[in-house]
């Protein structure tokens, strides 16, 4: 096993301490307390899972789900398959766009849907803590109900939810690892309980394989994994699946026994304040790996035997540890700095009577080399932000994006022209289809969606000044370049009539496009600077119109010929 390098800061695994904090607090007891009561009571709903609401204190609401005793004793593993469920598509991510839910859980959830929908409306009016809890299949319903609530939660919601399940089977194919929602789920699973592994393909008959078998089911949330000896908290889906597989093989085939989580909790509470069999000897030279091996052994996993790569886990922890609020603050200021550098470049170009686009394309200034470095830094930053958003469930991704949407748009409008410049400088053709990076495409798509969205703030509602400084359409220069190429083709002696006709059509289309931009004040006045590529195009186009004796006219031709652009973008009162 690889060890920590000498100059590295030692890391620690807090899986055991987090679990210890949980079992010694009263939160889990409070979540469990009502379940046996509900199971003993009369069934109020025509469903195999019953539910009730309790208000133990004015500040706390508990929603409990538990299966009827019969279904605990004889849970039929029918409906172990996954069915697509459109209602939960808000959980979709780029990796898993369509969400499927376990059939059994879904059937029960649907049968309670009317009640739950009323309950949701009622809960929306409440404040304070909301604990949603359930046992076995009841826990699955608790998870589904919590997701249902989360999808409808907004800033006005005053309650804080947490979902705590006991011995629940996995419910779906979606992961929440990159979502804030993940932190609302806590699943208690005992290694003696066969129920949570019910729908895993490896099943109860599987032997301890070196790899957990591929399953469409994905765990999400934090798992409090327990054994007779103690407990540990993990949120790594692979590790959780490993635990479930190992546990189910140890429980063996045969009859399903009922596991009493009340008793398990009592045992864990006692264990939490016990020293355990052995006393400390030496200091640990490798706290992370030594610690995690101890934690895994406590819950019945032998890292060597079950092929757990603690080195990988430490490397991941190290990556996470590097990202702090402090480093984020530094990064944000760096990004601002790069943008300021680019704005300055643009301004300097304008002072030289040039567009920054043309300056950059022609390599006019010495500082252009650094410009490419800044572009690179900015692009990496935004690619990372977009990737983060894509890993989140759709619904959450949207609200994540609103925070930085404005800045992303400014970035696209500022930097994409420079990428276009590189593309055409290097002899490219048709940037939009051949050269445009997925990042820009995505940012533009998001921008258009936001523009259509009537509830959200309009993308440009805040600062109208931006449009004066930067051209709205970040691909404007690509259109210009293509128009230049069309002009050349039109004038070229070797062009075929078909090519000429096609070029002419393109130029007409381009003219209409530009005119529309001008009418909307969506282009920067800089494009009319004497030496800009746009003006070069115009002179070339104008010449070709005149040369062919073609008295072609269009709003743009009129606009340009009459020099109306001299007043474009000037303040109206002036």
């Amino acid at each position, binding site marked *: 096993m690889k060890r920590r390098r000498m100059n590295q800061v030692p890391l620690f695994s807090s899986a055991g301490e987090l679990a210890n904090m949980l079992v010694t607090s009263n939160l889990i007891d409070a979540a469990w307390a009502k379940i046996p009561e509900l199971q003993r009571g009369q069934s109020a709903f025509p469903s195999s899972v019953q539910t009730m609401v309790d208000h133990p204190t004015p500040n706390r609401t508990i929603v409990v789900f538990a299966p009827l005793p019969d279904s605990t004793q004889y849970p039929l593993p029918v409906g172990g398959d996954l069915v697509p469920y459109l209602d939960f598509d808000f959980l979709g991510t780029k990796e898993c766009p369509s969400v499927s839910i376990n059939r059994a859980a879904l059937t029960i959830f649907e049968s309670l849907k009317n009640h739950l929908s009323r309950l949701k409306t009622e809960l929306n009016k409440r404040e304070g803590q909301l604990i949603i809890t359930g046992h076995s299949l009841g826990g699955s319903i608790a998870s589904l109900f919590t997701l249902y609530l989360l999808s409808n939660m907004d800033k006005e919601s005053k309650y804080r939810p947490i979902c705590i399940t006991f011995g629940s089977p996995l419910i779906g194919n979606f992961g929440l690892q990159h979502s804030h929602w993940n932190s609302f789920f806590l699943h208690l699973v005992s290694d003696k309980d066969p129920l949570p592994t019910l729908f895993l393909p490896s099943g109860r008959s599987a032997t301890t394989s070196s790899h957990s078998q591929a399953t469409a089911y994905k765990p999400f949330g934090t798992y409090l994994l327990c054994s007779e000896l103690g407990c540990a908290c993990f949120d790594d889906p692979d590790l959780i699946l490993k635990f479930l597989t190992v546990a189910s093989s140890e429980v063996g085939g045969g009859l399903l026994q009922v596991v009493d989580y009340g008793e398990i909790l009592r045992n864990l509470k006692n264990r939490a*304040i016990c020293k355990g069999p052995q006393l400390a000897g030496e200091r640990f030279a490798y706290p992370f790996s030594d610690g995690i091996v101890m934690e895994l052994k406590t819950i019945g996993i032998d890292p060597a035997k079950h092929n757990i790569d603690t080195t990988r886990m430490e490397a991941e922890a190290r990556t996470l540890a590097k990202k702090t609020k402090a480093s984020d603050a*530094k990064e944000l200021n760096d990004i601002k*700095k790069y943008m300021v550098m680019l704005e300055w470049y643009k301004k300097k170009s304008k002072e030289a009577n040039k567009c920054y686009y043309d300056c950059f394309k022609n390599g006019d200034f010495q500082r252009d080399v650094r410009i490419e470095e800044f572009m690179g830094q900015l692009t990496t930053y935004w690619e990372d932000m977009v990737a983060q958003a894509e890993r989140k469930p759709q619904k959450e991704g949207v609200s994540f994006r609103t925070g930085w949407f404005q800045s992303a748009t400014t970035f696209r409008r500022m930097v994409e022209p420079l990428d276009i410049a590189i593309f055409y400088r290097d002899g490219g053709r048709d940037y939009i289809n051949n050269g445009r990076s997925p990042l820009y495409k995505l940012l533009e798509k998001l921008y258009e969606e936001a523009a259509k969205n009537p509830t959200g703030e309009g993308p440009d509602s805040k600062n109208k000044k931006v449009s004066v400084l930067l051209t709205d359409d970040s691909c404007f220069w690509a259109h210009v370049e293509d128009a230049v190429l069309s002009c050349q083709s039109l004038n070229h002696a070797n062009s075929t009539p078909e090519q000429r006709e096609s070029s002419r059509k393109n130029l007409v289309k381009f003219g209409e496009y530009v005119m529309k931009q001008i009418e909307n004040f969506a282009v920067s006045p800089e494009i009319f600077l004497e030496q800009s590529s746009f003006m070069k195009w115009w002179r070339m186009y104008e010449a070709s119109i005149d040369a062919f004796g073609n008295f072609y006219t269009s709003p743009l031709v009129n606009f340009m010929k009459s020099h109306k652009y001299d007043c474009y973008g000037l303040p109206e009162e002036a």
Partner: protein
Amino acid sequence: MGETVGKLIGLNDEVIIPTASLAMEAHNSPSKPFLMKKIKIRHDHLSVVVLAFRGSMLPNDWFGQPPFGERKFRSLTSLNDGGDAVINGSFFQRFNTVLDQSSLVKEVKKAIAKEKQVIFSGYSSAGPIAILATLYFLENPEPNQILPPRCLTFGSPLFGDRIFGHALRREGWSDYFTHFVMKYDIIPRIMLSPSSTEHEQILNYFKSKFDGKNINPALPSGFYLTVMGNASSVASYEACHLMGCRNPSLDIIKSFIELSPYRPSGTYVFCTGNGNLVVVKNPNAVLQILIHCAELGESDTAEVEKRSLDEHSAYLSELKECLGIQAVVSLNGGPATATWNDLGLSPKAMLCLQSAEEFENGRSRNQDQIRKNKGKIEVELGKMRKYKENSEIRRVGYYDSFKLQNEDDDFHANVSRLELAGIWDEIEEMLKEFEVPDDFERKKEFIDIGTEYRRLVEPLDIANFYRHSKDKETGAYMIISKARPDRYLFIQRWLEHHEKKPFGSLSESCFWGEVEQLCIDIKKRGYLQQIEERIQQVERNLIAWIGDRSLDDDVLLENSTFVKWWRHLPPQHKSESDRIEKLIGERESCWSINQIRTGIIWHCDRTVT
């Protein structure tokens, strides 16, 4: 080993036993709120006076307001946005009664006047009273005091929260407090658990025992699991932080459970029960030891439970034995293997202690990193100073120049501004997360460079703010608002704290913000009375700040935003016309003199005129 407890805590070993003895006597003293005793020390000319306080085992004197009886404590506060310290309100109230209704202050002053060192001491519930008394005299020192007051407690319950300990360490007072704790004593752990019937059982047990009415009262039972369970929850929560837990559920879970706010502070001396003593200063390590050394072993719960009560009364005999042997281990250098068997710690506990040690190392590393960054800060500040001088050559203040953003220099200054913001925002985040040593904000080197940064660069942030009309989005750039970056607010507080000025009083770097805002508000609403008051305030501030040079006189340049605005004010709204005109005039003539004399501009010195 050669170490003695006395050496480690900075007191003569001979004072410990008499102090403990007096503390135990005073706790049950029926008549007096405190006892006093002079202690003679061999070979030491300085004599010591010990004051020990009376205790109380009434539940109401422990938990006034369930579950934890906490209240805010204004005297100790965090300089970042951590707020005021939290302490136990019931103990605080008892201390105030002693302060108001006894001769405490008089007696202490008398003792100090006689060149005596004062030790405040308390056993059990009198411990917090001793802590507060010590704090009172640390905050209000006597002029002729030779040595600071000291505090020794024996089996004291926990009393203050994390901010309380942080502020003590920041002020450098932490070492004046020493707490002796027996390995299993339940009382030092009791405050980590919310008040409950178990607490009452324990307190009632001790009450009847101390009252002497019943030497062997019935032992309560079953409390150990409850109290230690809750205490363990606190310890694990803290351990998660020390270990850098990145599971986001931690915060959610925390919002659903009520953990005790109290944390250890000061130096702890653990009596291991076999004659050995372990001295620990790292507060995070103290908390972990407090919980882990009292964990149940293989032995019977009932046995440990009994011991946890018995040991609360055993301080005197235990200390007599320990101080005879003087087998002392200090844990300040990190966990030492030899101590583990004495304290009976598990491997789990060892990891917690190592993480507490590593956490401190991390804080020092961060401070070192910031020290290294000082070079970078200096370079950028140098550029800024140059920028400021160059702007003045053009007879425009750098504030106004920056707002116009016409020159290359303005752009470079903006890049420097962002560079510096990155460095200082990083520091600010570390402070918020307590990731630098507690005394960071009191270190002169950081206050100085921070203050220079604030005075030189904050005007540019304000210029940027009003250049982009950001007031329309966030409201005015005021002293305490969302618009002003926290980094400036924090640095300002360091200086205010250092100079013992009220928070918010040294806001000279926000001068431009108030001027800009007044321009806007007058345009919008005219000269309301409230605005008139603000104008007068600006005028008074200007005169005071120019006077003590905390504000640079380039605000007085003829065509600065300030002078132009101020000159346009109708005369009836100005109250300091003459003095300000004079200042502007002085600035002008001083500028011309320098022009003539040297041909270049150097830092204008008003004394020239």
